[in-house]
């Protein structure tokens, strides 16, 4: 289709679609007036039944924990797929990229950037760990904390030490951690089965509401997800990074 011809059906289809979608959305309860049964059912049961205070975490890891298992494996599949796709093509040089100073646009990291990186690394690392561990108490959790953890390692890159970073992410430790995080979730779910309970039943001692060790398996699941997510993002972004480094090295005469 020529590009003008392409616009006409698109605009027409869009107008029809948008009109009816808007009509449908206006038939919903108005914004701010929601009265569904699901939310209240959870808000009223999570404290007595699970000693939990964070409804979103309770839903993600307890009431609808099976969804999160699937979600974790979506990320796992994306990492397997991403690494598969970003493997080196046969035409590309078979050996690893070598760190060459001045490679990155010809600029050495400014001292300020280096300082910032060094400073931010432990800070972000701690923040990530905190967010993972307190996922069942405060906003955040395994997923958000996991990405923060991965980000922490990218401050290492910012401060110029990306050789270390690549070396680390290529090693087996990270991919093992990733697999362990994913498998861990499956295994924690299995714990309930010998007791004659259903899969993913939250059977650990519930503890006191508001404590770090409370809400049964929630903190444990948060940790497994945090591990998986942190290593997944580390692997994914390192795969992209490696692509950039390979080509830059090739450009050098």
């Amino acid at each position, binding site marked *: 289709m020529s590009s003008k011809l392409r616009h006409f059906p698109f605009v027409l289809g869009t107008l029809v679609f948008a009109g009816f979608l808007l009509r449908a959305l206006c038939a919903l309860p108005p914004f*701010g007036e929601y009265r*569904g049964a699901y939310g209240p059912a959870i808000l009223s049961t999570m404290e007595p039944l699970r000693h939990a205070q*964070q409804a979103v975490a309770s839903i993600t890891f307890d009431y609808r924990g099976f969804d999160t298992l699937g979600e974790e494996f979506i*990320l796992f599949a994306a990492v397997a797929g991403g690494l598969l796709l970003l493997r080196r093509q046969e035409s590309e040089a078979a050996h690893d990229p070598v760190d060459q100073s001045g490679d990155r646009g010809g600029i050495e990291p400014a001292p300020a950037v280096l300082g910032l990186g060094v400073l931010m690394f432990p800070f972000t690392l701690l923040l990530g760990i905190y967010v993972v561990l307190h996922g069942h108490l405060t*906003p955040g959790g395994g997923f958000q904390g996991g990405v923060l953890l991965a980000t922490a390692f990218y401050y290492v890159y910012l401060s110029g030490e990306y050789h270390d970073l690549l070396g680390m992410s290529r090693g087996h430790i990270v991919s093992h951690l990733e697999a362990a995080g994913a498998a861990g979730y499956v295994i924690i779910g299995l714990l309930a089965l010998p007791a004659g309970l259903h899969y993913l039943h939250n059977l650990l001692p519930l503890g006191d509401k508001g404590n770090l060790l409370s809400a049964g398996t929630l903190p444990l699941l948060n940790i497994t997800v945090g591990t998986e997510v942190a290593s997944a993002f580390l692997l994914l972004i390192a795969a992209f990074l490696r692509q950039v480094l390979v080509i830059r090295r090739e450009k050098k005469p």
Partner: protein
Amino acid sequence: MTVLPYLIVIELLLVGLYGIATSRNTIHLVSCLFVAQSSTYLLLLSVGYLRGGTAPITDEIPANARMVDPVVQALTLTDIVVGATVSALLLAFALQRHKLTGTLDPRKEPPQRG
């Protein structure tokens, strides 16, 4: 005024789809998909919003406080992860295709048609 959230949802969705339909660059296309995807986050959260409600965390909050719906928030969380992972894969496709053909334009010589 209460229609505004829904209007924005539709706007993001259609603008994103328009971007995909007319994109001449795969990386641009992925960002457009990201915009279209965010319309679903917005719709889910708007659907579950309660006027004057607080975040669904019962720590230090009067017992009879109104809270917004936590379920849609959990769904949105999942959705965000899904969106990010798909974007990563799409970028990987774009990158490798660029290596082979030297172009990011999806309209340039699609190898299969008809």
